[in-house]
């Protein structure tokens, strides 16, 4: 009987003379370590004196195959809550394959988080196909129902957009969270959980410290802007007094105030010339600056028939605009 180590590792193939398989000095490592599928060899050469001469012998070579570590991170790329108004809102995340082999990840977006002050409706998950970091509808690929990413190489990161719908009854400053979860498609589990034979190159896939699953939360804050418009009038009659008689000049002042959060787009203030009055040409002003009556040359236009119209464009919170125009009482 010859008792040696009863060691025959199931996957440590004894490959004598296969040194060319793994040349010394060139091993690709990733953040997650040596790439899955890399072959590691242990061998030795020995010399000894046999009493007459020096002899050289070579051992067998034991080759092991590096297993695939399944690890992932998810990061919210929105440094501040995304300002959301009713309708579509987009949150941006980064999913990184922290393992040492190629892996795809199943993405799950959760909108019903415990401390949400309002709840969004999940619409879709898209990947940043053109790599510009911004969601481009129609350009960035919407993931199909299983919401699985393409296969990511070790260390590869992709930007993922979660698109949600903000309800119409949201109130200004309310907050809501959206969580994105990424699970390795091979499987998830406590660190060390093995998926036999499912690793890159035929080794095992093994859940790493991340449990092969990760999540991150993005936040939304409702930004609802409110517009107030206050109109006042002052009279100057032909006698220098403030009575409203024929020939009195009536100057209307419209003050537009934007409050709340965010901004109001395409804000246009229009007003009709009251019956029984006539627009006094060349009296339209915006924030104390004169505007012409003609259309197209500046922000405003005015005529007796169509009244006044002043385009304020995008008005941010805190913006106040004052429009004045004068009519003559017939």
């Amino acid at each position, binding site marked *: 009987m010859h008792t040696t180590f009863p060691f025959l590792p199931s996957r440590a193939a004894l490959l004598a003379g296969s040194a060319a398989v793994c040349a010394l000095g060139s091993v690709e490592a990733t953040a997650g370590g040596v790439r899955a599928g890399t072959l590691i060899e242990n*061998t030795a050469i020995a010399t000894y004196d046999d009493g007459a001469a020096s002899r050289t012998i070579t051992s067998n070579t034991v080759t092991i195959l590096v297993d695939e570590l399944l690890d992932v991170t998810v990061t919210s790329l929105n440094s501040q809550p995304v300002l959301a108004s009713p309708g579509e809102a987009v949150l941006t995340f980064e999913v990184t394959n922290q393992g040492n082999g190629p892996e795809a990840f199943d993405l799950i977006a959760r909108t019903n988080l415990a401390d949400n002050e309002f709840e969004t409706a999940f619409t879709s998950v898209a990947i940043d196909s053109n790599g510009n970091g911004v969601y481009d509808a129609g350009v960035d690929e919407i993931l199909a129902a299983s919401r699985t990413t393409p296969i990511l190489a070790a260390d590869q990161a992709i930007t993922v957009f979660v698109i949600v719908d903000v309800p119409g009854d949201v109130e200004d400053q309310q907050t809501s969270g959206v969580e994105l979860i990424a699970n390795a498609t091979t499987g998830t589990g406590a660190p060390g959980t093995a998926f036999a034979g499912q690793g890159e190159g035929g080794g095992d896939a093994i859940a790493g410290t991340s449990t092969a699953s990760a999540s991150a939360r993005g936040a939304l804050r409702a930004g609802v802007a409110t517009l107030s418009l206050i109109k006042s009038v002052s009279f100057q009659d032909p006698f220098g007094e403030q009575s409203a008689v024929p020939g009195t000049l009536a100057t209307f002042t419209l003050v537009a105030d934007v409050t709340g959060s965010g901004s109001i787009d395409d804000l246009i203030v229009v007003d009709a010339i009251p019956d029984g009055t006539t627009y006094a040409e060349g009296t339209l002003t915006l924030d104390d600056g004169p505007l012409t009556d003609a259309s197209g040359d500046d922000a405003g236009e005015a005529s007796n028939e169509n009244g006044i119209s002043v385009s304020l464009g995008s008005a941010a919170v805190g913006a106040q605009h004052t429009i004045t125009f004068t009519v003559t009482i017939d």
Partner: protein
Amino acid sequence: MKIITNLSAAILALAVPIGPAIAQDEAPTAPAAEPKISLRSDVMAIAISIDDQGHATTTLAQPEEFTPGTKLSFGMNYSNTGSEAATNVTGTSPINPAVRLAPDADPALVVSVDGGGTFGTLETRSVETKPEGTRAATHADVTHVRWTIASIAPGESGRIAFPVIIR
């Protein structure tokens, strides 16, 4: 039956002999009138268990996992199946670049950090830095491990090993 229990006397500059001595119960039936050394490589997992008194016991087991960060024992089993002693036995094991020598390797281990060109203990080794200068070598720089045994008697066998960590 002949059981070799103590190899240390035969080992001068050695890799850490972690494994138990090999039991061998028969001398070769037709011994040649010369030493005959055989070498067999192995890869074992290092398992450390701690008992009730806090004493750590290191055992070798069949490795199940080969993920980055896994610690393994790279072993070399030698035996002299001849009838004479083999002397001046020198063995060299290249360290695969996908692994690094573990920091708990025996400081007396004779190593090379230059691809097997020169050998010495790690503390005597240095590596060149770019663009100029040198720095003390670390375990991760080791490219080869060398072990020497003055004499291996007929029938004697043992295991020499060094710990590595998958990069």
